[in-house]
């Protein structure tokens, strides 16, 4: 029941999608309804089967790329829309004809249905492990009911409410992304901002390498500090924001740039004014939908930045090394190391300190890792929904791969299992922490 409650926002998104599709492809109610519902069923069953036959990460990856594709499509359409609004391209009229064909309506609503269904199923599978089949059937029924309500609602909406094709795409994509943003592993915004951050980072590196070898001799430290700003998280965030919102903004602009009808030939003043005002008003109505899409995208970013998921992130417990320099952590006792949760510790030696955690992977093996990775600032990790997340770059690392080195994975530490305790060498720990942190700090400051 609780999981069904969690589906409510997704069903709202589905309601919006159906509503907009019906209005956008006006006059094709039955085919849009049918195609949308079929799409939804395909989405649900497809995702369900994927979950059954492959590990979760594959399915999430597939659904995520479908969503990403819709976003890229939105980008394309927004560019076309803004280009068209400059009245330059009569060539594009085939696009207009294409939108009017019944097959476009059917395919589009089917695809939207697939997306919505897939996202809903991902939510189900993320929340529970058993009874998914049963829940899926319930989901399908609920979706059908919602679609029917949307149909009834659409019939009562005023005629003046019109949706432009670009606006329709914008809002449908926004609804899908919004609906996906509440699921940690489907969220697109944080990977996007991370990609931007890394892209900027790599670019600056390459640039420096190609121009300023050997750079340290020429570039002063305050310049390095300025360049260091480019490597910060904020650049990724704002860059991501720009990419995220631009298409919808372009569509709004395209609508605002639309030419008003020529009125010079109308002799009667009142009629001329009426035509003009009606056109402006219609334009404003049409811009309403993409503006709403902007709001939805903003909500999606918010959800992505402040996820409602609670991370499991215990306060690091201080530990000390014995006389031989070894840290011994009992497996059972006050803390059960084998409960599959993250257990954080902090080890101090003189002024140096190191944070690390012990975790039992789903494969049943214990692993000891630094609370930091080899690339990011050591902000640490939290655990949620079958993965740990790097707080700095928001990368999700599936629990299965924790303990393996590389990328943003936590840096593994050699350890021995001695009966009912885990033994880590204090010196190794301190050294590897210092090495990691120093390496990442250097990157942060922009040096090499």
């Amino acid at each position, binding site marked *: 029941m609780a999981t069904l409650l969690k589906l409510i926002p997704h069903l709202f998104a589905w309601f919006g999608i159906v509503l907009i599709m019906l209005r956008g492809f006006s006059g094709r109610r039955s085919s849009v309804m049918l195609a949308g519902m079929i799409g939804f069923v395909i989405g649900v069953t497809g995702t369900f089967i994927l979950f059954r036959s492959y590990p979760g990460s594959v399915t999430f990856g597939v659904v995520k790329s479908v969503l990403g594709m819709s976003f890229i499509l939105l980008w394309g359409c927004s560019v076309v829309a803004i280009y068209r609004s400059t009245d330059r391209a009569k060539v594009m009229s085939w696009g207009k004809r294409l939108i009017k064909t019944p097959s476009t309506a059917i395919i589009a609503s089917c695809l939207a249905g697939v997306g919505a269904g897939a996202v809903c199923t991902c939510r189900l599978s993320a929340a529970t492990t058993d009874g998914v089949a049963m829940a899926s059937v319930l989901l399908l029924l609920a979706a059908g009911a919602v679609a029917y309500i949307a149909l009834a609602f659409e019939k009562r909406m005023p005629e003046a409410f019109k949706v432009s094709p670009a606006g329709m795409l914008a809002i449908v994509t926004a609804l899908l992304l919004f609906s996906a943003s509440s699921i940690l592993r489907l969220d697109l915004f944080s990977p996007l901002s991370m990609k931007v951050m890394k892209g900027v980072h790599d670019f600056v590196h390459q640039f420096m390498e190609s121009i300023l070898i050997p750079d340290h001799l020429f570039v002063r430290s305050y310049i390095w500090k300025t360049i260091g700003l480019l490597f910060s998280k904020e650049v990724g965030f704002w860059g991501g924001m720009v990419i995220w919102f631009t298409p919808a903004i372009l569509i709004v602009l395209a609508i605002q740039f639309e030419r008003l009808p020529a009125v010079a030939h109308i002799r*009667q*003043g*009142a*009629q001329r*004014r*009426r035509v*003009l*005002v009606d056109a402006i008003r219609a334009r404003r109505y049409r811009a309403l939908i993409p503006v709403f899409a902007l709001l939805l995208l903003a909500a999606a970013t918010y959800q992505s930045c402040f996820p409602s998921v609670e991370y499991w992130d215990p306060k690091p417990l201080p530990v000390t090394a014995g006389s031989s320099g070894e840290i011994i952590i009992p497996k059972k006792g006050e803390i059960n190391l084998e409960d599959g949760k993250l257990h954080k510790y902090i080890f101090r030696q003189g002024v140096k300190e190191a944070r690390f955690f012990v975790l039992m992977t789903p494969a049943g093996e214990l692993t000891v890792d630094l609370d930091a990775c080899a690339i990011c600032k050591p902000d640490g990790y939290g655990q949620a929904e079958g993965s740990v997340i790097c707080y700095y770059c928001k990368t999700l690392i599936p629990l299965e791969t924790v303990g393996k080195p590389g990328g943003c994975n936590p840096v593994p530490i050699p350890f021995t299992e001695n009966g009912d305790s885990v033994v880590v060498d204090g010196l190794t720990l301190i050294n590897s922490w210092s090495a990691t942190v120093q390496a990442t700090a250097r990157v942060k400051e922009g040096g090499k």
Partner: protein
Amino acid sequence: MAELIIETTNLTRNYGDICALKPLDLQVPEGEWLTVMGHSGSGKSTLMNLVGGLDRPSAGSLQVGGKDLLAFTEDGLARFRREFVGIIFQQHHLVPYLTAVENVMLAQYFHSVPDEAEARSSLERVGLGHRLKNRPGELSGGEQQRVCIARAIINSPKLLLGDEPTGNLDQKSTLMVMELLKELRAEEKFTVIMVTHNQEVAAWGDRTIYLNDGMLVREESRLKVAEV
């Protein structure tokens, strides 16, 4: 015969127990100039308000320009008025703090969008090209009434209602206003319905109906008079 612009059957308006307009059947063809005469309290103004969409009948049916006014909501009636009706009042009712041209633009604003050039030319048309920037307080009665006419016709209404438009004017101004209305009607081809006490003013119309105590008592048309 031209199409009917106004068609009423059993049009009735009660204010509480008082019956301001007894069941009235009236037909006005498009383009006609109809004069309504009667004593005060005879229901002339009530008829005007009903036809102009300012008031709602208590009973009967009322079709203006092919639209059933009873079906409109209050805001729907307002939209009907701005598109379809121009009204000239006895007391002018100009907004005191707006200039002549702004008073005209106010009507444009409610209709669609203000257009100063158009408002100017319409004031020039009524012979007030030299008083565009004056406030109503600085204008004579005749001039104010001409601003009122410019405002009434600015949205090209099909129906022009005059509620004793010359009631407050002297002989000369009255003549001027009536001439103006006649000219404008010839140009714009709107229908005129005018309430008046003045027999001379009534003579400008095509047809005159007499109301007494909310009832139509007499009707005469200029053609008939001419025949006699």
